[in-house]
């Protein structure tokens, strides 16, 4: 059982980056308030109820969960042909856990809230500048928590420039985007070694081939630093001590990602992508290579219905023997949704409302690296696009 009781801790320090981000948002307000000319606001509300048959990663005595979720996104555009755009998004959810030891054990529940704001402005006909800021918080209702779902607060932001590479041939526009980004994560209960700071840059080149086909090439590199975590050495017999070693160099990873994406829109729409990741870590046993393959297919059905398939596979291999981290907590530095198979059926009730049913099967890597657990998620939902 990988659940824990909270350790007493002080109030987390306020981040100077949050203050900077808030200041940046405030600078946007005058521009928005003085928006001139035609404007357009699109919004989307999504409500779902989900059933998750294995929240915790223990397979022998699975914990189940019911999740109610509300998501909202809005896009405000103004200026000539949408020259400026302000996007807002919020998602909130409540997760009720049950099922542990034949329902005899009361489990705590979770609140998850996250929000983001993004702004893009065209500067001339061929250049656009933008930025985004997001914050997310997961909170347990009491001092109980699963180690793979600890409460946390994370913030992140980015700034980017997009250049329109309009060629002389019509119907073949291309765009180059470069940007920089940062993020930080502070966990509520786990020790400081698990908090992390990252900063990096990214670039992408997108080219359209007519109105139906689009290809994107991407590259990004992020430097991820764990301020409370020392490096693991090949001769360490107890990695847990190494993490807490104050005199050791801090663990720093460089995560490189190179990938491509193809979108084809037609009677059957397809989105296929491949990403190669290389995590170069100065901590022994934590460098890895991974191949990530994703595929989405949408097919229109009679009676205003559509069927959607989503598949994601991650093939990861560590370049050194992965350390035995039992009892040391997690070192998983990659995404939780490693392997996903998802089927979705949407029925449009009218132009504004749609309802959906979804089944997802996840095979995710557990906190002990190279060990996987499986879960099934069933959900029904409603979407409203006023």
């Amino acid at each position, binding site marked *: 059982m990988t659940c824990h009781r909270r350790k007493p801790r002080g109030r987390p320090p306020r981040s100077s980056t949050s203050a900077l981000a808030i200041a940046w948002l405030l600078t946007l307000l005058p521009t928005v308030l003085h928006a001139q000319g035609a404007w357009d606001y699109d919004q989307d509300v999504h409500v779902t109820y989900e059933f998750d048959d294995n929240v915790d990663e223990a397979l022998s005595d699975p914990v189940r969960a019911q999740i109610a979720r509300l998501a909202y996104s809005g896009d405000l555009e103004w200026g000539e042909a949408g020259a400026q755009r302000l996007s807002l998004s919020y998602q909130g959810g409540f997760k009720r856990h049950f099922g542990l030891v034949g329902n005899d054990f009361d489990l705590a529940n979770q609140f998850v809230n996250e929000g983001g704001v993004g702004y893009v402005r065209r500067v001339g*006909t061929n250049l656009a500048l933008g930025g*985004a800021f997001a914050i997310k918080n997961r909170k347990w209702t009491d001092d109980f928590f699963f180690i793979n779902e600890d409460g946390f607060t994370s913030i992140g932001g980015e700034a980017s420039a997009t250049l329109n590479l309009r060629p002389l041939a019509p119907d073949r*526009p291309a765009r180059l985007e470069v940007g920089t980004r940062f993020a930080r994560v502070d966990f509520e209960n786990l020790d400081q070694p698990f908090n992390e700071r990252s900063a990096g840059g990214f670039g992408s080149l997108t080219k359209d081939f007519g109105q139906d086909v689009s290809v994107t090439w991407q590259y990004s590199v992020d430097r*991820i630093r764990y301020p409370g975590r020392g490096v693991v050495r090949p001769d360490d017999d107890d990695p847990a001590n190494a993490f807490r070693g104050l005199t050791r160099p801090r663990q720093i990873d460089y995560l490189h990602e190179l990938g491509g994406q193809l979108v084809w829109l037609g009677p059957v729409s397809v989105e296929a992508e491949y990403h190669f990741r290389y995590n170069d870590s100065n901590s022994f046993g934590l460098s890895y290579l991974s191949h990530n393959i994703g595929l989405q297919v949408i097919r229109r059905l009679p009676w205003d219905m559509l069927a959607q398939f989503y598949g994601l596979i991650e093939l990861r291999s560590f370049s050194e023997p992965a350390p035995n981290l039992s009892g040391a907590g997690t070192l998983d530095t990659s995404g*939780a*949704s490693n392997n996903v198979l998802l089927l979705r059926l949407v029925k449009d009730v009218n132009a504004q409302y749609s309802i959906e049913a979804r089944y997802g099967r996840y095979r995710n890597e557990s906190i002990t690296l190279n060990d996987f657990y499986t879960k099934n998620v069933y959900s029904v939902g409603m979407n409203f696009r006023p």
Partner: protein
Amino acid sequence: MVSRATTRLGLVLLVWFSANMLSSTSLIAQGPGIVELRRLIDGRETEIARLEVRLRSLEQRGDSLSAAKRAAEPGSARSVSISNQILESSEQITNVTRQLRVLYEQVRDLKTQLFLAYNAQIPIVQQEIDAVTSRDPTAEDDRELRRLVALLADYVQAREDLTTEIEEVEEDLFLPRLAFDPRDGPAQLRVKEAIARDAVDKIDERITAIEDQINRTLQKQRDLEEFQRIKDDIERDGQAPLGGSVIEAILSDRGVGGRAGPGDVFEDPSARLSALQRRRFDLLQRREDYANKAEQFAERRAAFYR
């Protein structure tokens, strides 16, 4: 789809052939320049607008005269006077209709010439840019380079705009101009009514095709939204065990607000849809005009037998 592709291919071949012919005979150098062509087009479009108003006014006058003639006693001095006015009005309508037809043809030709002129100028400006960039840069060269690059962008954009207009003209329906002529008898009115009803049928077909295009465009936008929705849900669903995935979840949403990507910053996502809806609206209005005219021709024809 096939006809559109064929039209495009035909247009490209026509332009290529014409450009080769024109360059070999140096017609572009001798013919009017871009500025002059633009001036000629503007002048003709103003004249078209003026004549359209005049035609509507003449049709209304012809209507009133026909009604007055029906009310007047046959063979009376008043009836003869009205007949003369009807004749005069009818000649004016014929004259204005002819002028409009000529002007429409001229504008279409001028726009094709303008397209070819841009086509010829773009490589010339590109060569000038290459020449400036190949020598050691001076401050004057920098200014000249900026001017040439802006000029090139202007030409490319103008040519693209014209391509759309020419394509629309190529695809446009041939709809006869059916003016009310006070001299029309039952036979002419029957023919005009039949032509008007044919026009309504043709417009209906075109409206259906445009509605299909609108639906396809909406469907593509929706597919992109659904692709993004699944990704967002998976990235944000709170199953992330720890840090790395949370960072990715926050930062992966580069296309803000669930947009398909950053690229459409430069394209108004609704522009194509608006253009199609505008054309549909325009056709609906023309359909109504032709349907009304068919009804009016039928009524006038019936009036002969009352």
